[in-house]
């Protein structure tokens, strides 16, 4: 036996969560399993033996509905282990809504089925939330023997987060060589196990990515042939979907991420649950014609066929909180993404007590008590000012790229200067953004903006050109409008698209000081929408067949098309690596050490320059020069960029957007490491300027170097 036998049982009082205490057991597999948090409302493991068997505390929480209370007999809730006999659970003397039974020496991988008597006295299946593993209506005893090998990564710089899906990463990797070809194949090898077999995580890390944010909750999605929107039709509250993997497989995946210095951020989607995903789902559990877990007063639903958990019930809230905290602690998560927090708050906006607020307050308190270092990355917009939300969320979604895209892709017919963006608009927006004192994660487009989302459309009705499609598709639409006006040649379209996408993302990224978020479509220059066929697969390299046909129609050769894409990927990796290297964060206090400013704006030339000031060391300061117009500054017509005050030294080129690995134009670009000296301005009549060569819709990244 690996752990002490006398596991302390819960006390009767639930008010202070005293039962959910940190374990004081010596390091052992049970400690590895639950990481120190024991729930009261969930079936869980109490002891682990060397042969892999475990003692189980089977728990079913059934809220009492007044009418059916007298009918609750000793034969009210039963559990069946594997193919054995049904056994009665007994009501807890401390709480009659809790039904429990100790099961001794249960082999790992065993299946538990639960049932209860309904008001008519018939047995009905129930799949209670648990701290084991779930496969639809069945609970499985997990493999408890996984030992963590690597510590979670810590970063001393701002992080780059890619929002994607695990199945999408796998499906697009090497033509889907490692991906399941059907849902049934996932039974034999999960998504997590398949990913661990590959070098994918190492490659992601090498691409300048620190974090991947992925939906892992149980959902009705088929992860072999994904409709990505189905990932948001979830069940079982917060749980690892069986398709993602069993507990030890998911742990191994997280450990592999740790090994590569990657952080996996689960996208926890619980603001609504899908109706009747299987027999015995919580929404079907009823007594006296009343569903026990469903909030029947709910009126806001994000998708059809969903339901709200009844947060009015205190014990239901506690069960959910335990489920959340056990999930976070079991997998030793550092950051979790909370989906659509606003949905919770608005749902209860028409009641005397806002149970959504109450729920997140209680959840926050328990998280701070049990795992204070866990950071909640929250998707909240309208409710961002709500006090409960502000207290709950550690890092806020900040879509600062929205305004950039709105201006950048404004239809030429609505613009005075169709070929260039109004950088003054950018400058004012940036100044406003930078006044925020919240911890924020910046992005231009995430999944909701790369497919048709009614909420986004509702919120931004006047700028339909700035969302609803992949980044490259937005740029392509704009470029095609220019072609129709005769302002752009068709053969230039792909180059135009990559430069526009790069500028939009780079401007968003270099404004961030803590976290920059993007989607795989940025690097791949994906066309269409995220929910188009096959778009759920991450394009790791090359060009999709459809996109290739589109670009060949513009008159480019296949080689040109491939090389433009290859160059774009490399550029984005280089930019991210520069961002990560020169955006320092104090790892102890998590404070940003870089402050961005708008250093220079030239509306006529469509040039905008950001200064990223780093006080320690000053040499980590950057100048990022964006050309949002069609003018090429070179030769005698170089751009004279005034130097920021306090930076009298030279500047070294880290990145020049005009560089092409496979093109003779490469000679026209600065090589990385080129040192630029200050000089006297010829046109600008300023003492200290940098004479810069910069191409149309390009960008330069310069690092400060002392004299």
């Amino acid at each position: 036996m690996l752990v002490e036998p006398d596991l302390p049982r819960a006390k009767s009082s639930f008010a202070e969560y005293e039962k959910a205490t940190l374990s004081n057991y010596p390091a052992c597999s049970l400690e590895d399993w639950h990481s120190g948090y024991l729930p009261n409302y969930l079936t869980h493991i109490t002891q682990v033996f060397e042969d892999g068997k475990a003692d189980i505390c089977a728990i079913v929480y059934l809220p009492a509905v007044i009418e059916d209370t007298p009918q609750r007999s000793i034969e009210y809730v039963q559990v069946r282990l594997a193919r054995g006999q049904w056994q009665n659970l007994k009501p807890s003397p401390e709480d009659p809504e809790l039904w429990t039974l100790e099961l001794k020496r249960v082999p790992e991988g065993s299946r538990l089925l639960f049932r209860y008597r309904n008001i008519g006295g018939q047995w009905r299946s129930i799949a209670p939330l648990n701290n084991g593993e779930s496969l639809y209506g069945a609970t499985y005893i997990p493999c408890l023997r996984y030992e963590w090998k690597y510590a979670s990564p810590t970063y001393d710089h701002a992080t780059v987060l890619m929002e994607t899906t695990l199945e999408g990463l796998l499906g697009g990797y090497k033509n889907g060589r490692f991906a399941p070809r059907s849902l049934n194949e996932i039974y034999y090898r999960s998504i997590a196990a398949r990913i661990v077999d590959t070098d994918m995580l190492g490659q992601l890390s090498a691409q300048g990515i620190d974090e991947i944010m992925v939906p892992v909750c149980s959902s009705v999605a088929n992860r072999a042939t994904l409709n990505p929107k189905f990932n948001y039709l979830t069940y079982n509250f917060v749980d690892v979907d069986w398709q993602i993997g069993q507990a030890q497989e998911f742990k191994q995946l997280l450990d592999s991420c740790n090994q590569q210095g990657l952080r996996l951020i689960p996208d926890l989607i619980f603001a609504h649950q899908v109706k009747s995903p299987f027999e015995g789902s919580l929404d079907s559990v009823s007594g006296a014609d009343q569903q026990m877990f469903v909030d029947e007063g709910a009126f806001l639903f994000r998708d059809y066929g969903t339901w709200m958990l009844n947060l009015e019930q205190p014990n239901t809230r506690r069960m959910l909180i335990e489920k959340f905290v056990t999930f976070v602690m079991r997998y030793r998560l550092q950051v979790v993404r909370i989906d659509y927090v606003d949905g919770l708050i608005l749902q209860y906006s028409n009641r005397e007590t806002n149970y959504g607020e109450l729920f997140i307050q209680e959840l926050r308190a328990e998280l701070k008590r049990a795992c204070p270092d866990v950071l909640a990355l929250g998707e909240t917009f309208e409710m961002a000012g709500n006090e409960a939300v502000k207290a709950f969320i550690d890092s806020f979604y900040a879509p600062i790229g929205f305004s950039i895209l709105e201006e950048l892709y404004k239809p030429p017919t609505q613009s005075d200067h169709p070929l260039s963006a109004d950088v003054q608009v950018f400058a004012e927006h940036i100044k406003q953004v930078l006044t925020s004192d919240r911890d924020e994660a910046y992005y231009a487009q995430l999944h909701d903006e790369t497919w048709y989302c009614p909420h986004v459309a509702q919120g931004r009705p006047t700028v339909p050109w700035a969302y609803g499609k992949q980044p490259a598709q937005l740029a392509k639409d704009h470029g095609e409008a220019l072609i129709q006006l005769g302002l752009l040649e068709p053969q230039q379209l792909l180059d135009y698209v990559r430069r526009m996408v790069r500028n939009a993302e780079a401007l968003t990224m270099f404004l961030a000081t803590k976290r920059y978020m993007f989607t795989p479509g940025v690097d791949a220059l994906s066309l269409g929408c995220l929910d188009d066929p096959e778009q759920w697969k991450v394009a790791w390299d090359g060009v999709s067949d459809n996109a290739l046909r589109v670009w060949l129609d513009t008159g480019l050769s296949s080689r040109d098309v491939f090389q433009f894409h290859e160059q774009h990927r490399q550029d984005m990796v280089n930019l991210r690596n520069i961002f990560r290297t020169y955006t320092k964060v104090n790892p102890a206090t998590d404070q940003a050490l870089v402050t961005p400013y708008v250093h220079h704006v030239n509306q006529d030339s469509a040039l905008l320059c950001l200064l990223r000031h780093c006080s320690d060391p000053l040499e980590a300061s950057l100048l990022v020069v964006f050309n949002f117009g069609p003018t090429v500054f070179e030769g005698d017509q170089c751009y004279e960029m005034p130097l920021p005050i306090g930076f009298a030294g030279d500047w070294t080129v880290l990145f020049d957007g005009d560089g092409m690995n496979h093109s003779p134009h490469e000679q026209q670009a600065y090589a990385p490491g080129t040192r630029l000296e200050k000089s006297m301005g010829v046109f600008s009549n300023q003492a200290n300027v940098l004479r810069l060569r910069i191409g149309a819709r390009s960008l330069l990244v310069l690092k400060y170097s002392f004299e």
Partner: protein
Amino acid sequence: MYLDLGLGLEAYLFSNTVLNSMIDLSLFSINSMGVRYGASKLFQILVPLLSYLLVRDLLVERILFNPTIRHKLKQLLPKSERWQAVWHNTPVVFEQTLGFVAWKIGCDLGFFLIVTGLGPWQRAFTWSGLIPYAIIQYFVYFWLGRKILIEGQLNPFKPKPSASPSAERPTQWKRFLSKYLHEDLNSTSEDIPLRQVLLKPLVDYAGLVLSWSLYTVGMFFVQSGELNAAPVIHFAFFEMFTFYLVNTYGYIIGFNVGEWVHFRLSWLEERYSAWARQQAQAIAHHQNNAITPSQQIYLWVEAWQDFWKELRYRFLWQAAPITKQYGLDRRWLLSIIGGVYCVVLVAPSWSGNMMALGSKVSRAWFSAFGEIGQVQLAQVSENMSQVAELPDSNDVVVGFPALWQAIYQPDAIADNPPDILQQYGVDLNPTLARQPSPSNPG
């Protein structure tokens, strides 16, 4: 030194012999029976694939009914639901028909014409064979066998209701049975329901027997107007059973081995990928240092990959949609190579054993239950009672030169015929008389 050379040569010859014999044993221990079975399986894979490529994708979709024509046809079509259903269902029916026909051609070329040599190869392409075969396959195999028996649909015309995913983790033994006892469309899988694993061989066999024998009946009927049930009654049931067994289960083993090789290679590639990244980082971080041997290997491999990338960027991208559509990747290639090669390897022994077993069973059956009628008995008795008056073999050997000369060189012994000719009553005169006179040609 000579000794050394001699020993070296001997060792070389020995090792070469051993190597050859090893190679003979492990790789080329095949005979014509194996090759014929293997070729048969190969046809069953390639003919349907090529049919879809050439007939559906090229001929129908690109030439006869290209998108422009299809668009015009659709505009001409009445808008009623019935016609719209016809529009949607026609490609499905066409593809199924093409699949059955192509499968039949592949099997015909393989089994009847190569394995058994029962007819000329053109027989695989006769309309009088293809049409009845496709119809029988459609009704007997697809509807009755697949839809009703295997899938359990009492009404095969109704679309199958989507099954909910199982809430029970599949067991290892089910996985094994599925992977090693079932093959469909030339591939294996771990997630075949047990019902299908058990029933499919029966349905396959019944389908093969019925479709092949009945289409032969059809051919006779078309050609002669005679409805003859002999092809059904006297069908080579056991040979077909042997053929099915060897081709299916031999292929399954080889297919799974080939697939395993693919997974191992993929695993190695992933390890290489991680290693290559380390080398690239080392080169980037220590640009002034000399290149180490491992880094040099990495650079060579990268140069090779760049070459392939260039080929892909210029030419190979054009093949990508086709290979992607049909799943023609390394997994497919190694699996079918493994499958066909395994059939070649196991066919001689498996089919030999099966046939021997069949003979034994037949003999045992005859011993136990066989009866001989009066007519048969009379025939056998008559043969038994005949007494052959054969010469002594020694005399035949000794006298062979004289007898040979008596046939081919009667002139040489005409003056002095050996005694043995007289002993056997050989008369040289008729032979001499048949020979043309050199002085009187023609």
